[in-house]
């Protein structure tokens, strides 16, 4: 019984942490800035590939095959630290060049432009490095199994991902709740004109929060990417669709909603898979989304105001 309980809890948290990781950066931009950033998938993708090339020296396909092996070979730990930083910087550039001019445009315009960026990035990566998948050759401390009281074994890296997801969520919560910039973002989302009139440069706060969202996307890429193979299509298949689902079901603008929705999806996925099969588990997730949105169209924690 204990064995079963540990396994079940581990599986739910394991799946939920991946759902939350891929959704949180998207939730930040969508919720805080009212900006539909479908290029979030591209940021995750860049994070996953950048992690590979920082950590290892890779034999690649595509145009870059001529220069194989490519990479810095600085190790997995260096990649973990550098990728979010690099994506933060990319986020700043992206906010200034793409997001800022689009804040006042319709959601459809934002969607089309950012989806276009995702496709461009995906195809560029495919042309440069080929369409084949790559796996992270993680070091010993980041791979293998952990035995739990001799009862069952857990995937060591997935346990780390669960813990790191919790820590980064707490950081984000603290940022929104206890920092001036977090307060400025929350206020600016309500009424950016009033905030500007009060002398607060809300534009900078928005830039920072967008970059934080990008960093989270990159963090998702370097944490979740090593669990699976990395290929150009994961930006859409593994990130965008689950992220959209989690954020909308959780309630746009609510980080809490994103977390709760991620946990719910994890619970449903594991439960249905255990009772039926993996195909039904996917159906279960979408069924959950339909049920929630039918009962509460604004999602579990609603979109009307920023909450944490």
């Amino acid at each position: 019984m204990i064995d079963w309980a540990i396994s079940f809890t581990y599986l739910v948290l394991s799946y939920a942490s991946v759902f939350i990781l891929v959704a949180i950066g998207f939730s930040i931009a969508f919720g805080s800035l009212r900006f539909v950033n479908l290029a979030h998938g591209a940021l995750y993708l860049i994070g996953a590939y950048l992690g590979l090339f920082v950590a290892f020296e890779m034999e690649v396909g595509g145009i870059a095959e001529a220069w194989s092996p490519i990479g810095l070979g600085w190790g997995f730990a260096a990649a973990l630290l550098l990728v979010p930083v690099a994506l933060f910087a990319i986020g700043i550039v992206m906010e200034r060049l793409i997001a800022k001019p689009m804040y006042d445009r319709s959601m459809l315009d934002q969607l089309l432009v950012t989806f276009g960026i995702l496709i461009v990035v995906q195809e560029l990566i495919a042309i440069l490095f080929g369409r084949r998948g790559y796996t992270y050759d993680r070091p010993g401390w980041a791979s293998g199994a952990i035995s739990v009281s001799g009862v069952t074994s857990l995937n060591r890296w997935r346990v780390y991902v669960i813990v790191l997801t919790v820590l980064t969520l707490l950081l984000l919560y603290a940022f929104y709740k206890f920092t001036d910039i977090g307060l400025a973002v929350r206020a600016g989302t309500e009424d950016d004109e009033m905030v500007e009139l009060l002398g607060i440069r809300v534009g900078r706060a928005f830039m920072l929060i967008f970059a934080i969202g990008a960093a989270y996307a990159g963090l998702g890429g370097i944490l979740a990417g090593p669990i699976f193979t990395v290929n150009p299509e994961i930006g859409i298949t593994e990130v965008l669709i689950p992220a959209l689902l989690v954020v909308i079901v959780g309630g746009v603008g609510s980080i809490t909603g994103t977390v709760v929705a991620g946990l719910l999806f994890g619970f449903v996925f594991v439960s249905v898979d255990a009772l039926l099969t993996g195909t039904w588990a996917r159906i279960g997730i979408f069924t959950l989304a339909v049920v929630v949105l039918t009962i509460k169209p604004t999602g579990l924690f609603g979109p009307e105001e920023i909450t944490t």
Partner: protein
Amino acid sequence: MAGCAGDQEQPLGNYPIDGDTVGYGFNGPLSGILAADGEQQRDGFELAIDHLNNGGGLVDHIDDLSGDGVLDYEVEGYTGDTEGDENVATDTLERMIDRDEIMFFTGGISSSVEVASIPIAADNHVVHGAVFSHTGEITGTDCGPYTFRSAMSARTSAEALAEVLPELFGEDQEFFQIYLDYAYGQSNRDHMQALMEDEGWTQVGTSAIAYGETDHETQINDLASEEPDVLVFTSMGDAMASGLSQLADRGFEDLDVVVPLLSAFSMEPAGEAAEGVVGTANWHPSGGTDWSDDFTEAFEDEYGYTPGQAAMEVYDACLHYSAAVEENGSFHPEEVAETLETFEWEYAMGEMGYRECDHQATRPAYVVEGVDEETYEDTGIWLDLVEEIPGSETEYSCDEEPASNCEMPARED
């Protein structure tokens, strides 16, 4: 007109042929995750066209083939990129049939694409050389009057593995199956269960994973609770690579793993994780007949890399179709199909021959094992040959599944 024979021949599909060239089509994945094998297939196709028109390679060994075209027609090759998607595949195929007036097509990796091609071949009276795709349906429930599969079926692979696995891993083993939850995975699951249990092994459990899903954590959990000796893992591509990596992360790196069909697009992303994995392939360069070396040499001279099963199968399909046409004396599709139904040949892969009941070739299977990256870098091949199982030991009767599920439609005008 060159190639016409008999007053009885009525126009059918793209027959009779206009002009002095005959079209052969290649319809396979040149982009997407299956491209590693698809590109090799295309190279095999183009080499076959070249040899059929100009001599060289195995054409020089085959009495029926002149090396100066087929029935005095120059062969023109047409290429379509299916992207591994059945909707795209049917579009490209229909374009080749309508615009390029092909008489024959081959290529493809995905079972769903191959199955989608069967009715198109039947409706348009175009001979379809099905290669690689493993699912039983192609020569089972979905068998077609113009579709001939020279590649192994899931049953063929399972028969070969049943011969070898007890020797490799021991008698009385307990095995668990993780499989893709659609026709391909279910075919392999059923055949492996039946045949391995006949060999005295015990299946202790199964766990399905959705097609396209790469997170195997719940399936590995199911496996962990059963503690099997061997895992039969019916998967492919990035999903297989993810699964093997996730197995190692749960402490199962020493578990004996069998993947019924192994190929480049699966082995590449898996890398070191696939070392020691046992499975089957349609051909291996170090196996087959003496002609294997001739093919390998011709291919390497042309393309600069060692061919695998993907290239060989398509090359072989083009050649044996052409030989059947020469034997028939005409490209008339219905007559060529009738000729193929009892056609036998022995090129590089060994003795092969089609059956009228399901159009499945009885043929050898190559049991192979994954190698480490260092060996791959030395040899250019991801797989080592373990044993070659002749057709006499891999064949199954027309009364057994999947053949028994085939109700072969008539070739209608």
